């Protein structure tokens, strides 16, 4: 499989989740494990350009696919515009949900560069955040949209 533009291989056992492989075998702990059930969105990544929960994908199923994780968003150590916008808007508190959210927002803006508030509500409803109250996340999406 290709992860963040780099061909990677990992030895996995068949029942293992892609999230586990990313975090524990491939040195990419940015995607977080918070529910193991596809209910919180903290492990959101892009698989062939589609937003998925890495905890629901079996690692073996990812063979041959193209993955982008939070670590692959920014280029050469700089922040991706969505990450910049999260920082600027104060949309980060504890930050545990943030990696999944920034991937989901990057995905949203790719499909819809100027999303309405309703579109933001729809697109991010699968990413639970327990700290911020989401208000600053709306701000971050609006900021990022102006820069994309």
């Amino acid at each position, binding site marked *: 499989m290709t992860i963040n533009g780099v061909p990677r291989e990992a030895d996995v056992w068949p029942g293992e989740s892609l999230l586990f492989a990313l975090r524990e075998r491939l040195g990419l702990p940015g*995607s977080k494990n918070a529910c193991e059930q596809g209910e919180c969105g903290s492990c959101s990544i892009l698989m062939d350009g589609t937003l998925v929960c890495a905890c629901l994908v079996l690692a073996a199923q990812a063979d041959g696919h193209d993955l982008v994780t939070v670590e692959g968003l920014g280029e050469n150590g700089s922040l991706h515009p969505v990450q910049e916008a999260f920082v600027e808007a104060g949309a980060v508190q504890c930050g545990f949900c943030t990696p999944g959210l920034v991937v989901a927002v990057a995905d949203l803006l790719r499909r819809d560069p100027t999303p309405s508030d309703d579109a933001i509500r729809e697109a991010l409803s699968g990413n639970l955040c327990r700290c911020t109250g989401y208000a600053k996340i709306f701000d971050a999406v609006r900021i990022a949209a102006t820069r994309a």
Partner: protein
Amino acid sequence: MADAPQRARGEAQYTADVLLPGMLHAALLRSPHAYARVKKIDVRRALEAPGVHAAVGPEDVEALTDEPGFFGAPVAAIAANTVEQARAALELIDVEWEPLEPLLDPDEAVRRGQLTDEPRRNERGDFERALADADVVVEGEYRTQVVLHNPLETHQSVCRWEGDTLEIYTSTQYIWGIRSRVAKQLGVEPDNVRVVCNYMGGGFGAKNDPGEYTYVAAELARRTGRPVKCALTRREENLAAGNRNATIQRLTVGARSDGTITALGGEFVNAVGWDGWIAPTDGPMQTLYHCENVRTVTYGAKINTAPMKAFRAPGYVEGTFGLECLLDELAARLDVDPLELRRKNYAHSSNERPYSSKNLMECYRRAEPHWERRHELRTRSDSTWKYGAGLASQIWYGGGGPPSYAWTRVGSDGRITVITAMQDIGTGTRTAMAQIAAEELGVPLDRVRVELGDSARGPFASISAGSSTTPSMGPAVRAAAADAKRQIIEIAAQRHHLEERVLDISDGNVVSADGNLSSPLEEIVGLLENAQILGKGARGPNPTGMQVLTFGVQVAEVAVDVETGEVRVLRVAAIHDVGRVINPLGASSQVEGGIIQGIGHTLSEQRLLDPATGTVLTQSLDAYRLPTIADVPEIVCELIDKPDEHLTNLGSKGLGEPPIVPIAAAIANAIRDATGADIHSLPITREEMLRALEAAKQKQRGAPAAV
């Protein structure tokens, strides 16, 4: 936020991300019964399972029990190479359970005298007499449910022994509390326990103590000589990691016909669980309004459910829901404006000690334009959707206190490092501390770095709970920065043959009052070459004889679909008085976060139990419903940014908890305004909403007969 880039990039290392060489993983065997005795436990088969290194039971670790008092109580643990192997081996632990009859009804526990502690009674004046003399009396029974903290990072620790020193990487709100509790429990010197928490993924009150996962990891690490991680799954998190306990509140208010409250009484039953303390559900009734005759009794019901833990303004959230709903029922009975009723009964001075500062009246004044919107709002109602507004007041602590210490290190390059062994629970602590140091030292914010999160690399710091981080730590940081500044000015004075009193630091330059000197900080400090300036600071005491409290009011606007019971929160205006505001962006984010957590508490979150067995039914996040971004109303946040003159060198109070206190009552009161239905129970599910609407209809039909 100073550390937001690391978090946004996924680079911040949480306990969940700690991977140590040779690290083993622990899994916990939890009781499948709400109440049982372990008659026999045998781990021999489990020890032979693939990858297993060690097992511990109730005889090995005090946090494990052979008489589990709640579903999910920890009984035994296994350490294995992988977490899957550890979990698989749990199935091989042979346990002979003797199930016992669980007691789940808190009222029944009170009747039987099965209590966690002596009932707490508070009385002033003559309640009975005041009630007898009252023009109007309103009574009501209110119920609040169990809600679960659900921080995104579950409770977890990684433990490693280095000789006789124990290293604990843990997701905690209190590094120093973990250090002393673990040292005491294990019988080792506190200095031989190092606690590290660089980043943590939320706590909300549930991560103040070490927890069984820490003790288990420590013991398994000791036995295996390997680092051991013990991380709760989401399901375990929702079984045994703490909760806001349910309450039953039987409340009475007596008033004169002009709205003057003359008597307040409450019987509060806190469904504490198998263990825990009695949160001050009676607090708001005792302190929010001026009333001479108040009588409360609060019971801690010991039942076979998981122990409560502090959860964002424990007691006050629940108690404010009851009291502030009762107040609106009184307002309706007297046909008095709810805001006027609250002003009329304003507590100008406390019944015991004076307030260090109180600007609640100013909060009420600033609430007026939001409150006025209700007239226009109501006109939007049609036969299906009803619109209305409601408000509720807030009182809570938030003064923090000593002790807490901080150091500031100024290098010869003029860069400043703030060092303190506190934890940042995600509330922007690093930013606030950097801002305080930068302001005091007169340097740009980007010159300041904050190092925290390690008990071996900084001085003692307070708990991050009770809205106390900024008010406790901020003054220590400020004092440390002032100490460093004094030393820098001393050097500059000697170097330039000037008096210290004419020198100051501004925008990174040491400047003289006459303007003749303006020398970059690094030039002055650079005179010392490799030496460093070390400033030290301590948190001073709170004002003697005064109460340090926070205040506020929230106005909620709702729409209710009276056919389907759907409740939508449209807008919340939150006005709070928390002294001086350090970081406005972070502060408003705290307010928004508190309001959404409160909306979850009010509308969608509840832990459900099987009534026969006490099994927790809502263990996963599809069954236990946290609000999503789609549930967010418009939120208007206004802070009365007035420093508390009596409180420390900073004048700041905490803001973590106040915003969640009044939201449930504000929403319930808005629902009454919209529909006439009295909400008496949280959460306001479709079922509760339809019940309340039906009851209101019955009351209306019955009304003529009662006149």
